[in-house]
């Protein structure tokens, strides 16, 4: 907290620390020249201040520029750990002002949406001791379950698990106790999103469905609150964020699935439930992530749609840039991958016979869409996650492939680990588990946690060794990291599926899982210079890429 005077011609900066993932609220208020000796009517607003918050990379993470009041409030989730600056600037002329400020930091370990957060980082700051024998409990055994979300749904300070399947949404305590089931739903096929949609202090569960409906439920009780019907089926899990800086939450999602050029992205006011805007960026399938990619203090929506990738102004829905990438079908992840203070986007494209495209993982500049680097692959990549897995100070992108191979790449180096697997299930179902990143053995290094179609939950070190392999059987997909037993440490919440002859022994009561293998080393290790790291379209590329080393 602080109290100080800002002279009529000066600005002021307040410094404070925050840890990545913390929810931070910074509040600024100022006096208005009370003159009690004369008349309270002299207590008039003489000055106006704006508040901008910057992280240690000088990236603006939030701002508040309201008028006609004597306060500003900025809520943000700390993108990085370090010192933050609250820059208080005067708007127009004014008197010397007595100013007070305060801030609060609440650490959230929620895995409250697809791939952890709206940037789809897949990275949790939780630490665990999941390096030896692990215990497990099965909290739900049903059909057609989607991937779980983990969040404190009832404000009791403990995390719960929310999972949907075709006709129900369910919530569970971390010990497996059932909390509620909502059955007024059909065709829910992806991870629910858990956020306080209407700013009432309580969380909501937002569920997208293939029957074109978006459901909003009270997260504590499972009670129906409202729904919205889109034009077409909804595939991508929604993002809930304050896109227009009004301090209230909006819901952003896309519809569309099959070949049609009129797929939409929607923004709904979470409080009034009104549709703010609906745009048609084109393309077939729409995945979204969100971040302030251009440092203007406002959110942008990054979408992929099989034709390419684009950025929208989240406040208006207007197109900022669009780049063509045939068969861009993997959900994007947004992170500062080269530690330059700006954000990049990682996403994958597929080669499909008779359709084109390439099997590649791309990294592009998030502010402009310009290509930074790419890496050619032997098969289809899945969704990327981002974290400094190898501890070199640069974030890596980490992803699984259809053949269940794991890749961990930054701009200069990387490794891959070939697992004997096959994600082709039948004629139209392809399984590529997403990747979670966290320090799950408390060794101050990040590990990579990923499922496989061969029934394994694998844990890799950041340098590419397979540290632990747990044989869960069946098909293991999309691990989430949470603290569901409220011990302050990480647990893994994961879907374990069965198709046809696949089987899993981990049903029913809880038990103990033993690591199956002794640690191994990546089968490839460091990937050296690859000639396919090139610069398409003859565009210039940062000089660091000229070395040609990934």
């Amino acid at each position: 907290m602080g109290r100080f005077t800002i002279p009529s011609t000066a600005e002021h900066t307040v410094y404070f620390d925050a840890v990545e993932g913390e929810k931070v609220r910074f509040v600024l208020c100022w006096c208005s020249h009370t003159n009690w000796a004369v008349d309270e009517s002299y207590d008039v607003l003489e000055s106006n201040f704006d508040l901008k918050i910057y992280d240690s990379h000088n990236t603006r993470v939030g701002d508040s520029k309201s008028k006609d009041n004597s306060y500003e409030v900025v809520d943000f989730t700390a993108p990085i750990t370090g010192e933050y600056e609250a820059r208080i600037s005067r708007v127009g002329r004014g008197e010397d002002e007595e100013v007070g400020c305060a801030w609060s930091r609440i650490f959230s370990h929620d895995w409250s949406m697809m791939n952890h957060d709206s940037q789809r980082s897949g990275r949790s700051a939780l630490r665990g001791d999941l390096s030896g024998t692990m215990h497990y409990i099965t909290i739900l055994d049903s059909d057609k379950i989607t991937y779980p979300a983990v969040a404190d749904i009832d404000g009791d300070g403990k995390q719960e698990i929310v999972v949907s399947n075709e006709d129900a949404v369910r919530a569970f305590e971390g010990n497996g106790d059932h909390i509620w089931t909502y059955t007024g739903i059909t065709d829910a096929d992806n991870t629910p999103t858990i956020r306080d949609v209407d700013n009432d202090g309580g969380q909501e569960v937002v569920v997208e469905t293939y029957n074109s409906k978006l459901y909003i439920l009270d997260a504590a009780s499972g009670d129906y609150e409202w729904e919205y019907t889109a034009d077409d089926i909804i595939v991508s899990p929604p993002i809930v964020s304050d896109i227009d800086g009004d301090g209230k939450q909006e819901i952003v999602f896309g519809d569309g699935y099959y070949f049609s050029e009129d797929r939409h992205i929607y923004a709904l006011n979470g409080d009034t439930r009104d549709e703010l805007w609906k745009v048609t960026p084109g393309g077939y399938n729409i995945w979204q992530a969100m971040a302030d990619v251009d440092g203007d203090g406002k959110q942008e929506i990054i979408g992929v749609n099989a034709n390419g990738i684009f950025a929208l102004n989240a406040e208006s829905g207007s197109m900022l840039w669009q780049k063509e990438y045939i068969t861009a079908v993997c959900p994007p992840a947004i992170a500062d991958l080269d530690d330059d203070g700006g954000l990049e986007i990682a996403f994958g494209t597929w080669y499909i016979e008779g359709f084109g495209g390439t099997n590649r993982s791309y990294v592009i500049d998030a502010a402009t869409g310009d290509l930074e680097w790419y890496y050619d692959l032997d098969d289809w990549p899945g969704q990327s996650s981002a974290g400094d897995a190898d501890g070199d100070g640069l974030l890596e992108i980490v992803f699984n492939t259809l053949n269940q191979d794991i890749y961990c790449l930054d701009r200069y180096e990387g490794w891959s680990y070939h697992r004997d697997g096959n994600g082709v299930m039948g004629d139209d179902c392809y399984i590529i588990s997403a990747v979670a990143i966290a320090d799950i053995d408390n060794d101050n290094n990040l590990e990579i946690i990923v499922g496989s179609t061969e029934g394994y939950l694998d844990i890799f070190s950041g340098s590419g060794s397979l540290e632990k392999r747990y044989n869960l059987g069946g098909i293991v997909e999309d691990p989430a990291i949470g603290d569901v037993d409220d011990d302050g440490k990480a647990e893994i919440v994961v879907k374990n599926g069965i198709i046809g002859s696949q089987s899993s022994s981990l049903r029913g009561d809880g038990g103990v899982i033993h690591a199956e293998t002794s640690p191994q080393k990546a089968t490839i290790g460091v990937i050296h210079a690859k000639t396919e790291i090139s610069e398409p379209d003859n565009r210039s590329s940062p000089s660091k890429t000229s070395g040609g080393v990934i």
Partner: protein
Amino acid sequence: MNASIDAADIFTTTVHASDFDSNAVLILSGPDPDLVVATSGISFDPVSPTAADIVTITATVHNQRDDSFTNKPFKVSFYDEEYLIGDDLIVGSISPGGEVNASVEWYYPCYGTHNISVIVDSRNSIPETDEANNKADKEVVVVSATIYTVDALLALQMAAGSIPADPAADVNSDGAVTSLDALLMLQYCKTQ
């Protein structure tokens, strides 16, 4: 890879659960820590307090699991019989096999023998493999704050072995009643 893939199907990947016959959601967790406190881990400063002292009671809390750590604040509570002396909140993590000291100030205890109990994680906030080893007791003798010349004489007799030693007479806390304790008592009497 299926070469005859229908282009319309290419986007059904990775999020399509409808082909599954069965699914489960599993929670995988690591081992729990085991916090212990032992009688030998409880200490008093001063060792032989008087009723005029502010006594610091310290308890060493040990995590005896080598594969699990704590990562959540927990309370260590100190009791004089059934009366709560105070709590110490342990905020930092205790590493596998690690330990931490918890302490409270005990203000001007009544003279006599006290049974001090230490309860680790008294609010039960840390899941542990063994919750039954979180309590330990230790007796401490608090002597009167007033010392008379006769006490010095008795201490001298204890030092000589002519009467049994009373721990309360070990005023310099060296573990034995000696002539030095008697001398200290005399000096104390002189200042009173």
